[in-house]
């Protein structure tokens, strides 16, 4: 599957900046391909490429195949690989960097997760603290999948029943952390 993807990258992948992998390559340059990360990963069973193989693909610059794979999006940030890596590489942060690129480029396979993060952070930008129901409402609106809210309904109702979540209408809010978010964006240029 990933082989085909490499040969026929989607338009979004073709537009990936050439240096998209550069910061991640820097992080894993010293990888010796020992596989300790794969053996330590609780999510390896569900990945299409093992973490060890992913680092090799990063160093080989295979962005099209990497950004079609499930691997980095299945990292649940448990830090076992980072703890055990014999070269002391920041592997969890390397996974985060790949997630950030996929989110920034709005790559289709990762939208369920990247939009979840985006709406979470938008809520923080507006209010300073996350408002769980409000950000989920924005998330559902952005995903435009009428079935999606139902998969959260059972837990959502339980939380509301306990007074731990309150219905909040989507709002533009007061822009509590607008300045900080803006300053972070300005740092990049």
């Amino acid at each position, binding site marked *: 599957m990933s082989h085909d993807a490499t040969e026929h990258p989607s338009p979004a992948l073709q537009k990936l900046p050439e240096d998209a992998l550069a910061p991640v390559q820097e992080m894993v340059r010293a990888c010796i391909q020992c596989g300790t990360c794969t053996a330590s990963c*609780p*999510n390896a*069973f*569900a990945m299409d490429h093992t973490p060890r193989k992913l680092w090799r693909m990063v160093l080989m610059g295979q962005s099209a195949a990497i950004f079609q794979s499930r691997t980095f*999006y*299945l990292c*649940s*940030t*448990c*830090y*076992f690989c*980072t*703890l055990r890596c014999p070269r002391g590489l920041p592997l*969890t*942060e390397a996974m*985060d*960097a790949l*997630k*950030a690129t996929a*989110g*920034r480029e709005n790559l289709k396979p990762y939208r*369920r*997760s*990247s939009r*979840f*993060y*985006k709406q*979470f*952070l938008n809520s*923080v930008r507006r209010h*300073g*603290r*996350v*408002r*769980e129901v409000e950000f989920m409402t924005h998330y559902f609106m952005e995903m435009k999948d009428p079935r999606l809210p139902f*998969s*959260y309904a*059972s*837990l959502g109702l*339980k*939380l509301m029943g*306990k*007074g*731990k*979540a309150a219905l909040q209408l989507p709002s533009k809010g007061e822009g*509590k*952390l607008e*300045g*900080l*978010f*803006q*300053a*972070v964006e300005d*740092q*990049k240029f």
Partner: protein
Amino acid sequence: MKYTYYPGCSLEGSAKEYDRATRSIMAALDVSLIDIPDWTCCGATAARAFDSLLSLALPARNLALAQSVEDNPDILVPCSACYLNLKDVKEKIRGDAELKARLNTVLQDEDVQLENPPRVRHLLDVLARDITAAALEKARRQSLEGLSIAPYYGCQCLRPYAEFDDPEEPRSMEALINATGARVHPWKMGGQCCGAGHMNTKPEVGMQLVAPILEAAREAAAIATVCPMCQINLEGFQKRISRQTGRKYNITILYLPQLLGLALGLSGQELGLGLNLALTREFKNRIAA
């Protein structure tokens, strides 16, 4: 004893009882908590997966605000994700003046600056090493004898920073559980991953991480947690996982300070026990007895 307190967003929402129980046991133990004034979100796992500078700037704001608390007491953090985010900044600016300057540029608009923020401590660290099991046992009003409790640590209070416990085979909760009169359920799942946000965005994978944890605790009276994400993953989906696996799971999941609070003689109300999603009838009867 006095700490600066960072509750974090979950403790105002889905983990209200974690906040209530933490404040109640600290009051009972004569420990004062001073909230960081005007604290905001630490970025959770979302900011890390979005932008690395933002993921440091959000906790940095809170560290900078914490500097205003008199006497510079350590920052006590109950949520493991918040703990890691705050600690990460503290560790990374040590010896990286350039990063510190960059964060301070971002913080200018917030009218705060990072100088030398206080130490960042997880609630479990404070309970195990500052308050100590011995002091808890001394303050005990009710023995939880006969209960066997499975200590669940999760990931981010243990890794990547091995600050107060063995990051592979954690044991810091055991003496605390014994101090309540309960015994420790023997298992190997304490430091394993609950899948974190997978239950939200990739439930088919998340379930495969949660189910073995529940299975290994089948004989325990309860699982004790120290993280809102772990707690909700273990308590919120038991019916769904039972349907999928054909194994019935009905296991009490509670926050460690709730368990300790019971031994200190605090009421269900003071510990927010009514807010838990998975407290079995058997467990309720046992603690009422």
